[in-house]
């Protein structure tokens, strides 16, 4: 049971949602935008996060947030699309494969792509394909509705101004059917938080890599990619150099020690490089 009381609002347009946020904020209700709501419900229930919120604004009834389809040379994915739906979307197989390993199927019916990338959980695995494809995010806020490259608004976590929310993800067609790998390793069972997740995309002769579960945040790193793509080195040398370029220490936690993560990472990278070479 959630012991906190809050108001629930259901806007039907982006402008209505922004207006609601402003009004509720002015009344001191600390409103938050609500998408799938799984993290908000679970964290509120144990009084861990979002405890100040006295109003939630459910954005799932905003048409732009539930839209998927092509517009020009880009695939548009509404932020309220559940991961289970993305798992079955043939247009972007890398995203589908990555989403298919987040949580369990029934939870994926509720978790949305917007919620996954904006939540506080450190894994945010749905962001990996978005980082690899240099997508743009449509963000609504005080400054209007803007398309912003993901690299400008995602650094370890989403950098959203208060009162703004992700409306859509825009992915260029040219990235959708490139060769890819997506590998999630868990401690024991198939369902669980990642020991590590590696997603990679082959663009010409180069490969892009993004990671979750390795450090305290998901990331894509130019220096790691440079090391992994350096053809002057053997595969083992590339991997060793890439590990030395990680942006933060390897995690050591209940999912596995830092040393074990490094051991598994070496194997997963070796497999990934081999698969992409053949792809």
């Amino acid at each position, binding site marked *: 049971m959630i012991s906190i009381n809050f108001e629930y609002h259901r806007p039907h347009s982006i402008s209505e949602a922004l207006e609601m946020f402003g009004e509720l904020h002015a009344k001191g209700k600390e409103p938050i935008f609500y998408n799938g709501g799984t993290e908000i419900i*679970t964290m509120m*229930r144990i009084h861990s996060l979002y405890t100040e919120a006295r109003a939630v604004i459910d954005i799932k009834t905003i048409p732009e947030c539930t839209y998927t389809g092509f517009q020009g040379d880009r695939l548009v994915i509404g932020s309220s699309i559940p991961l*289970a739906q993305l798992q079955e979307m043939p247009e972007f197989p890398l995203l589908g494969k990555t989403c298919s390993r987040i949580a369990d199927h*029934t939870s994926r019916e509720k978790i949305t792509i917007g919620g996954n990338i904006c939540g506080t959980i450190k894994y945010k695995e749905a962001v990996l394909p978005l980082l690899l494809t240099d997508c743009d995010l449509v963000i609504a806020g005080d400054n209007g509705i803007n398309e912003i490259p993901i690299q400008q608004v995602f650094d370890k976590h989403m950098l959203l101004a208060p009162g703004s929310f992700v409306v859509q993800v825009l992915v260029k067609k040219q990235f959708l059917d490139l060769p890819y790998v997506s590998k999630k390793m868990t401690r024991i069972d198939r369902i669980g938080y990642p020991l590590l997740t590696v997603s990679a995309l082959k663009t010409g002769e180069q490969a892009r890599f993004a990671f979750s579960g390795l450090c305290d945040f998901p990331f894509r790193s130019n220096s790691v990619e440079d090391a992994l793509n350096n053809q002057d080195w053997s595969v083992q040398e590339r991997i060793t150099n890439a590990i030395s370029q990680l942006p933060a220490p390897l995690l050591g936690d209940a999912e596995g020690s830092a040393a074990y993560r490094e051991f598994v990472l070496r194997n997963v990278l070796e497999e990934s490089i081999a698969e992409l070479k053949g792809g």
Partner: protein
Amino acid sequence: MKQMVELTVNGEKKRIYVRPAATLLNTLREELGLTGAKPGCENGDCGACTINFDGRPMKSCLTLSIEAVDHQVTTIEGLIDTPIQQAFVKQFAFQCGYCTSGFIMNCHALAELYPNANEYQIKDWLQSNICRCTGYEEIEAAITEVLKNKAIEDTPS
């Protein structure tokens, strides 16, 4: 703080007062007397509270009651003698029974939405529910039987 909402549960419209913070699981059990959805972890992990939301399996502990306005909710009480219920009995796919309603709602949605589901998809969906009696083999046999029978029914004679 309670507000009036109209929910459609098992095809019936119900007007009730709920707190916006109330989960669908709590409302089904405490306001509507539908105790088939079970509280387990209440954290989205065990699947005992699974219901169908517009025909798709959903954990009612991870859903606010108020989110269900304008949607169709089906609980185990709304299923009567369906093929998956018959198959659970035939295959002895339950022991203590606590997880059974959640498993049945999940399996029912799978059979309705994906009658041609393959083994991978069956396992992928079943991993959303936990059976502490470990009756997984029998549960898998039950859903497999339902899908096989559907395939036979759908085959042109």
